[in-house]
C-alpha cells in the first residue's frame, strides 16, 4: 500500500469522541470477525490434508510406498493386489501432456496475437469467447468428448470406444483459456519502451513480438503453461466420461486409459469393494494433490511476480525470499532458454555456412510478418470454431428435448416422462447456500487481508494457503467433503455438505476478485476519510466497500457460477433421483451437472438426449449469471469518476 500507514495512530481518530469506547469495541469485534473469516482457509486446508493422510494411512500400512510409486500394474482388487501407480500416472501424463501439446502452440500464439496485433475491437470480441470457454463446466466438455470427438477417432482412426485422444482434445480446449489469459497478461506487462526501441532499430512488428516481447514475457508464458498443466492433471469428468476406466501402462492415445483423478471418481461411483481399493483412492488423491501443489506453487510465484513487478524489492532481499522450488524453476527455465538459444545459434551458423550471408529483403521480412500474423490469428479462429462446434452439437442434440414436461417433471426412469425440475431447484438451493457461505467469508477475508492485516508471517501464510486452495484438483474436494462434512460432522450426503464443499472451491476466487477491486479503490479515498476522523472500519464500510462493490459482486457471481457447474466434488454425495426438491439443508439433493453425468453414462440413447437438454439449461443459467456479472462490471466502469 502506498502512502500513509493506516495502522499507526488509531487512537487519534476517536479522541474526544463521546462514543469512542463503543466504537472501538464494535470495531475490534468486526476486525476479529474479518480475521476469523480469513483464517478459516487454514481449517479448510487442514481438512484436506487430514483427509488425504488419514484416508491413505490404511493403504500405506499395507502397501510399500516404493511398490506403490514404482509398480507397473494397477489392479486394486482385494485378491490380485497390484498397487503400482505408474499405469495411472502414465494415463494422467498422456492426457495432460497431449493436451498441452495442442494447447501450448494454440494458446500462446492466440495470446501473442491478442496482445500484439489485435485491434481493440477484435479484442473485445475475442475476450468474451475465451471467457465463455473458460466458464463451460468440465462435464460439458466430457459429454462433447464422448459424443462428438470420440466418434471421429473411432470411425477414422480405429480408436477404441473410450480413448485418450478425445479426452486430450477436450482437455486442451479446457486449458486454452488459462494459457491465453495469463500469457496475454504477461505480454501486456512487457514495458512499451522495449517494443519502441526494437521498432526504432528497424525490426518489423513480427520480429519485435517474437524476439523481444515473447522472450521478455517468457516467465509468464511458462507459468501459464504450468497452471494449465496443473488443471489438466487434476481434470476428472472429461477423463471419466471419455477416456475409459482401465489402468494401462500405455502412451497410445487411441487406446483406453485411466488417470489418477478417474480412479478416485471410480471409487465414488463404481462397485468397488471396501478395504484397500478404497483407501488406494485416497493414496492416489494424496499423490495427485502433491504433484499439482508443487506445479501450482511454482507457477503462482511467477504470476505474482508479473503482477506486482519485481523491481520493488532490493535484490538481496529477493534472493533470500526465493524458495528452493522457485530456484529450481528458474534453473529449468534458464536451461530451456539456453537450449533454444543454442539451437538458434547452431541453425544460424549452418545457415551462414551453407547460404551466403546476405541481407534479407524487407519485402521478405514483411511477408514473414504477414504469414506469421495470419497463422497466430488462425489459432483464435480454432478456439472460436471449437466453441461453435461444442455449442452447435449440444444445441442440436438437446434443443428437441426441452419442453414443458422436461422443465416441470422429475428425472423419471422412463426417458419420455423425465424432467429436471427438482434438479434445477437442487442446483438453485446449492447456489443460494454456497452464496450465503462464500460471500461473507470471502469478502471478509479479502477485507482483512487488504485493509487490516500487516505484512506478517501469518498474513503471508494465509495468502499462500488461499492461493493453494485454488489449485487443489476438484475431485480431492470430493474426498475431503465425504470425509469431513458427511462423516466427521455427520451432515450426511446433504445440501449442507454439498454447499460447504462448493464454498471451499469458490472461496479463493472470491477472495482474489474482492482484493483486486479493493486495491482498485485509490488510497487517497482512505487517506481523506481518515483525515476527517473516520475509524478504520468506517473507512472501509463507507468509502472503500461502496466503491469496490461492483467488482466484488462480479467476482462473487463468477465464482458461484463456476462452483455450480462442478460435478466431481459432489459426485460422492449427490442423488440421481428424487421426486421433489430438497426442503431443508439436511436433505439429500440433486444437481444439474451430476444429472448430466448420470444420464450420459446410461446405455439408452434417449438418456443422452436428456443429458444434452440438461446441458443447455445449465449453460443458459451460467451464461445468464455471467451476463449479469458483465453488465454490473460495465455499468460500474461507465459510472466510475476516478
Amino acid at each position, binding site marked *: 500500500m502506498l502512502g500513509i500507514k493506516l495502522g499507526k495512530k488509531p487512537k487519534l481518530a476517536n479522541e474526544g469522541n463521546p462514543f469512542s469506547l463503543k466504537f472501538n469495541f464494535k470495531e475490534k469485534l468486526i476486525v476479529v470477525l474479518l480475521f476469523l473469516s480469513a483464517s478459516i482457509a487454514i481449517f479448510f486446508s487442514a481438512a484436506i490434508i487430514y483427509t488425504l493422510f488419514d484416508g491413505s494411512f490404511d493403504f500405506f500400512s499395507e502397501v510399500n510406498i516404493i511398490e506403490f510409486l514404482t509398480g507397473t500394474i494397477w489392479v486394486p482388487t482385494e485378491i490380485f493386489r497390484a498397487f503400482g501407480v505408474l499405469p495411472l500416472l502414465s494415463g494422467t501424463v498422456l492426457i495432460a501432456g497431449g493436451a498441452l501439446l495442442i494447447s501450448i502452440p494454440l494458446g500462446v500464439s492466440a495470446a501473442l496475437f491478442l496482445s500484439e496485433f489485435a485491434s481493440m475491437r477484435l479484442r473485445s470480441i475475442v475476450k468474451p469467447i475465451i471467457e465463455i470457454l473458460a466458464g463451460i463446466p468440465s462435464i460439458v466438455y466430457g459429454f462433447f468428448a464422448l459424443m462428438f470427438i470420440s466418434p471421429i477417432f473411432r470411425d477414422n482412426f480405429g480408436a477404441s470406444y473410450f480413448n485418450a485422444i478425445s479426452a486430450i482434445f477436450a482437455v486442451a480446449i479446457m486449458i486454452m483459456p488459462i494459457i491465453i489469459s495469463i500469457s496475454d497478461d504477461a505480454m501486456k506487462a512487457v514495458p512499451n519502451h522495449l517494443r519502441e526501441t526494437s521498432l526504432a532499430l528497424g525490426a518489423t512488428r513480427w520480429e519485435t513480438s517474437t524476439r523481444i516481447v515473447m522472450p521478455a514475457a517468457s516467465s509468464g508464458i511458462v507459468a501459464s503453461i504450468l497452471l494449465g498443466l496443473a488443471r489438466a492433471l487434476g481434470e476428472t469428468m472429461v477423463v471419466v466420461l471419455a477416456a475409459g476406466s482401465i489402468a494401462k501402462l500405455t502412451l497410445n492415445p487411441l487406446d483406453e486409459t485411466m488417470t489418477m483423478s478417474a480412479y478416485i471418481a471410480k471409487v465414488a461411483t463404481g462397485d468397488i469393494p471396501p478395504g484397500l481399493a478404497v483407501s488406494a483412492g485416497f493414496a492416489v488423491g494424496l499423490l495427485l494433490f502433491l504433484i499439482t501443489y508443487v506445479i501450482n506453487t511454482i507457477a503462482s510465484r511467477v504470476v505474482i511476480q508479473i503482477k506486482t513487478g519485481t523491481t520493488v524489492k532490493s535484490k538481496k532481499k529477493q534472493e533470500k525470499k526465493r524458495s528452493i522450488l522457485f530456484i529450481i524453476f528458474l534453473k529449468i527455465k534458464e536451461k530451456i532458454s539456453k537450449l533454444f538459444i543454442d539451437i538458434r545459434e547452431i541453425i544460424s551458423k549452418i545457415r551462414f555456412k551453407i547460404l551466403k550471408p546476405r541481407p534479407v529483403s524487407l519485402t521478405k521480412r514483411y511477408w514473414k510478418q504477414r504469414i506469421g500474423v495470419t497463422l497466430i490469428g488462425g489459432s483464435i479462429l480454432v478456439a472460436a470454431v471449437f466453441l461453435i462446434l461444442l455449442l452447435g452439437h449440444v444445441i442440436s442434440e438437446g434443443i428437441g428435448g426441452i419442453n414443458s414436461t422436461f422443465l416441470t417433471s422429475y428425472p423419471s426412469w422412463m426417458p419420455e416422462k423425465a424432467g429436471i425440475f427438482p434438479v434445477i431447484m437442487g442446483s438453485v438451493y446449492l447456489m443460494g447456500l454456497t452464496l450465503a457461505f462464500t460471500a461473507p467469508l470471502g469478502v471478509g477475508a479479502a477485507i482483512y487481508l487488504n485493509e487490516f492485516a500487516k505484512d506478517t508471517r501469518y498474513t503471508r501464510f494465509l495468502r499462500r494457503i488461499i492461493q493453494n486452495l485454488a489449485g487443489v484438483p476438484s475431485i480431492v474436494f470430493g474426498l475431503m467433503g465425504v470425509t469431513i462434512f458427511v462423516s466427521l460432522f455427520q451432515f450426511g450426503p446433504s445440501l449442507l455438505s454439498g454447499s460447504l464443499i462448493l464454498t471451499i472451491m469458490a472461496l479463493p476466487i472470491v477472495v482474489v476478485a474482492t482484493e483486486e477491486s479493493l486495491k482498485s479503490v485509490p488510497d487517497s479515498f482512505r487517506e481523506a476519510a481518515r483525515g476527517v476522523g473516520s475509524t478504520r472500519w468506517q473507512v472501509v464500510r463507507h468509502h472503500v466497500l461502496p466503491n469496490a*462493490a461492483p467488482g466484488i459482486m462480479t467476482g462473487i457471481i463468477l465464482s458461484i457460477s463456476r462452483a455450480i457447474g462442478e460435478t466431481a466434488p459432489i459426485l460422492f454425495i449427490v442423488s*440421481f433421483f428424487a421426486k421433489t426438491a430438497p426442503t431443508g439443508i439436511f436433505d439429500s439433493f440433486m444437481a444439474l451437472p451430476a444429472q448430466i453425468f448420470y444420464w450420459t453414462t446410461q446405455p439408452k440413447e434417449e438418456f443422452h438426449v436428456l443429458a444434452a437438454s440438461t446441458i443447455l439449461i445449465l449453460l443458459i443459467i451460467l451464461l445468464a449469471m455471467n451476463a449479469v456479472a458483465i453488465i454490473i462490471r460495465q455499468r460500474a466502469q461507465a459510472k466510475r469518476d476516478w
Partner: protein
Amino acid sequence: MGEVNQRNLKKLVIIIAALLSVVAITGCVEENGTALPKLTQTGSSTVLPLAIAWAEEFDGATISVSGGGSSHGINFLLTGQADLGDASRLMKSSDYEKVGCNGDLVNDDGTASAACNGVLPTKWVIAYDMLAVVINPDNDWATQLNYTQLYEIFTDDNPAVFWDEVSGLNETAPHEEIEIYAPDEASGTYDYFFEEIIPNWGKDDQQANTRLEMEDSIYHPSADDNVILNAIRDNEYAIGFFGFAYYKENPTAVSPVKIADGDDNYQEASLDNVANYPMARPLHIYTDGTPESDHVINDYLQYVLSEDGQDVVPLVGYVRLSLVDEDLITGQLGLL
C-alpha cells in the same frame, strides 16, 4: 458520488437477500405441498435403475436415490446416513470391520447376528440379476458353453487364443482369434461373472486370475454395456457378457449362449428359465432391522414385493422374484 456508491452496496445486499429469500420461500412452499416422509437410498449401481424406478412408483414416501456401489450402500446404512442400502452382493465381514465392528458377527448368508453401532443390517432379496454370455449372431460354433470352456476363454489359466483351441470346439470352430468385450473391474457384473467361473474366487487359493488382469489385450473392458453390445455385433469372433437387461433390449444384435455349470446341462438364458440358468443372482436392499408394521420402510418393502412393485422389475431388465422362487415373496412378506 458517495450516495451512488452507498446505493451500490445496498444493491449487493438486496440482491443477496432476495436470492436467499427466494430459496427460503420456495423451500417453504415445497414443504406445504408434500408432507410425505423422506427416505435416503444409496448403494449398488446395479440396483440403482431399479431403485430409481421404485422410488418413482412408490407413493408413500419421497425417496432420494444415489449410487456409489454396494460397499457405499452398506457403509451408509451402518453409519446411519441412509435408510435403505442397495447391494448386488451379500454383506461381508469387511463391511462390518470398516466401521469398527466385529466382522465375525456377519454370517455367510449376508445377514448379521448382532447389531453394529446400533444398526442391525437386515437383508431383503428384491429381484434377480441375470447375466447373458453373448456372441455374434453369425457365430454358430459357440452357441452353448460350459463353465470349463468359459474358464478357458475368460481366465489367465492356460487361456485359449484361437477359437479352435477351446476344448470341445477343436473340430467345429474356426482358427480365428477370440476377442472379449465385457465389463471392467468396477462393475458388479464383472465380479459376479468371475465368481461363477473361477473356483475359490476371492479366497486365498483362488484358482486363476481374470483375462483382464493378464493384460494380453484380448479382454477389452468397458463400463458401458452399449459398447460391449456394439463391439460384439460388429465382430464375428467376439464374445462377452453383460446384464440380461441389455440383451433383452437388443435381442437381434447379439445371441445369448446356453450355459452349463456342469458338463452338459445346458440352460437357455431366458426369463422363463431363470430358476435353472446358472448365471442369475439375487439383488438386495438392506434395512436397519425389520421395520415396524406402521413404518414407511415397511410400506416400501411391501410395495417392492407386491405384484405392482415386481411388475417394474422386468421393465428395468431384471428378473422378478416369482419366476425364481414364489416362496421368496411369501416368506419375506410374512416377516413384514
